């Protein structure tokens, strides 16, 4: 009862604070960014710049084959700019790439040297062979260079090889799993950082504020116990997280997300993060002193993002960082047929860990009332 009372009181107080509205405003800004700035899927069409330094008859053959692939089977003559000069180019747009046929070696140099895009110079050598010269920047790996080289192997174009390659069967795992679009897959990042992890810092800031004003000491002489106070603070922060997370998720994901799992996960992971924040806070007098530790925590928590966006980098040690689990869980929550068992296990883990840390923190706070 007393706990409920202090919780509603805290909620009431914070609903009047500037901070609460920053959180709400921030969630709306993030939503706007997702809706209007981030494209549904990033434009991943590659751009190819080619200069055909070959007899007209060969050129015509290239043109024909490019036009076959072109979306409207016609090319356009357009103007392109490089190194502050305007050049003419034939432009082909296929399903996967944009191809520019440049009109001079000068244009090719301008693109490769000044604009720093890869270009290809196609010419005929003394033995009447067609030679592709790739202009790269220098940071490309040997693997990429080898790949370019092997595709221009004299034998690579033989019918026998093409037939063999066409007959390799391709099986796809995705019969019932719809992958998230690029926009949707950013949501877990926002949820993890705006929701769960911010709890850690916000609760620290809250507590330091109250420490300064002697509220924690005052609690010692009231009928209520310190853990009531700590838990009601945590509760307020979790409520804020729930609201902001819903603001971001509902307009984009609609009914696709599993909101029950999401609610559960925000509560447990938020509780964990807030308890950790409380525990760290209990060691320091003010936020300036705690700043360093909080900073290191934030840097560690950011690392799993890199693995989230480049899955090929996924060492085992990164998997024990809590934000890694949070990112994965939020991803499962918003995916169709997501792995809810993973989310439930993670929730249980966070709840148990959070409770342990909370008890520790409570113990420290009781002991250090005089801080």
């Amino acid at each position, binding site marked *: 009862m007393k706990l409920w009372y202090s919780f509603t009181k805290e909620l009431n107080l914070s609903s009047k604070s500037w901070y609460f509205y920053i959180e709400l405003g921030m969630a709306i800004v993030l939503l706007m960014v997702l809706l209007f700035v981030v494209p549904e899927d990033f434009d991943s069409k590659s751009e190819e710049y080619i200069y055909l330094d070959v007899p007209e008859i060969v050129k015509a053959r290239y043109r024909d084959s490019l036009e076959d692939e072109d979306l409207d089977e016609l090319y356009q003559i357009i103007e392109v700019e490089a190194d502050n000069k305007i050049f003419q180019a034939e432009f082909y747009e296929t399903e*996967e790439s944009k191809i520019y046929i440049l009109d001079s070696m000068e244009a090719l140099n301008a693109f490769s040297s*000044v604009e720093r895009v890869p270009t290809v110079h196609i010419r005929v050598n003394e033995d009447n062979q067609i030679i592709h010269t790739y202009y790269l920047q220098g940071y490309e*790996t040997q693997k990429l260079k080898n790949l370019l080289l092997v595709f221009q192997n004299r034998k690579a174009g033989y019918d026998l090889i093409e037939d063999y390659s066409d007959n390799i069967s391709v099986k796809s795992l995705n019969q019932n799993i719809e992958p998230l679009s690029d926009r949707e897959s950013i949501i877990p990042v926002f949820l993890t950082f705006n929701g769960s992890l911010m709890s850690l810092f916000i609760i620290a800031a809250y507590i330091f504020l109250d420490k300064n004003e002697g509220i924690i000491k005052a609690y010692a002489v009231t009928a209520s116990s310190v853990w009531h106070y700590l838990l009601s603070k945590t509760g307020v922060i979790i409520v804020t997280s729930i609201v902001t997370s819903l603001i971001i998720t509902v307009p984009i994901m609609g009914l696709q997300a599993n909101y029950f799992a999401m609610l559960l996960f925000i509560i447990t992971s938020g509780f964990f993060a807030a308890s950790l924040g409380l525990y760290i806070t209990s060691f320091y007098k003010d936020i300036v002193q705690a700043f360093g530790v909080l900073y290191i925590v934030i840097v560690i928590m950011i690392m799993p993002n890199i693995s989230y966006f480049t899955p090929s980098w996924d060492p085992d040690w990164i998997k024990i960082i809590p934000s890694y689990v949070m990112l994965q869980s939020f991803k499962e929550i918003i995916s169709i047929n997501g792995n809810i068992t993973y989310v439930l296990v993670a929730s249980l883990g966070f709840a148990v860990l959070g409770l342990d840390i909370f008890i520790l923190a409570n113990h420290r706070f009781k002991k250090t009332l005089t801080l």
Partner: protein
Amino acid sequence: MIRKILLIFKRDLKVSVRNFITLYIIVVPIIFAVIINVFSPGINDTTVEIVLIEGENQQQGEFFQQFAKVEFLDSLDELEERIKRRDNIVGVIPDKKDDYFILTQGNEPDYVVDYVKNLVSFDHYNINLEDSQAEIVDYGRDIPPLKRLMVNVATIFTSVLGGMIIALNIVEEKTDNTISAIHLSPVSRLGFIAGKSLIGVFVPVVGTFLMLFITGFRDINYFHVFLMIGSSCVISIMVGFIEGINNDDVMNAAGNIKILFLPLFGSVAGAELLADKWQPFFYWIPFYWTYKGNNLVLSNSGTWLDIIKYSGIVLGISIIVFIVLAPKIRKGLE
């Protein structure tokens, strides 16, 4: 005057070192640098990624490794799990006969699948790098663009951190009520501001230079670097003062600093991802110009005129902000 300014700087430095913040904030760029160094070799690999079953066909694995990033996993289940993740990795798996089939997630671009199909058949027919009719020419620029981007963002971040130290210092002075005490001392208000600002330049400059050195940007024009950091520090310092003065408690400062990061990352994303017609939306953000200027400095392709132009714009925006907010700052320091 100069001596007094330096005294204030020395005092701030001492206080910050005692609190470990400055130390942390100087260490942070080094952490950034190390992280960037650890990741950038992986970033370079823009080629195809293939996953194979460990020990199934060693020769094939070695062949693929010449051209693609190859991972080996123990079982078919692990392979499927790996393919389901976000990137475009593709599995090559033996079927019942002597052949192979390709396992995809289903959302890979066709060219990735085509590359892998071709590589499988090249391996089958023993086609390798000999007899290639291609040549490769490069410009010897060995720093990948993504690494440049990360260093660039980290540089801006570092200058913002400088502003944060100032904000924290001022909030601290406020709670200790030492600001009013300083008016009784012979330090002028301008001297006080200058003294307080020094740390906001010192920390980012040292941090950034260390970071550039560690990440391997050693052949760039360090004077250009200094100009760009200097100008972006001015805006961070201003933000630091405003944060410090307007916020009586850390709670609000934390919220406000969060808002500050939005234009920072927004302008980087805008400059990198959006088409030209959207660019004017970012012109008011100083970080946008800092980002563009830094990019030129880091790729060593900026002329003096470019650098002066970009740092000048940042400085100009700072001056406008200062003129608008000067009365507030003055009042806050009273």
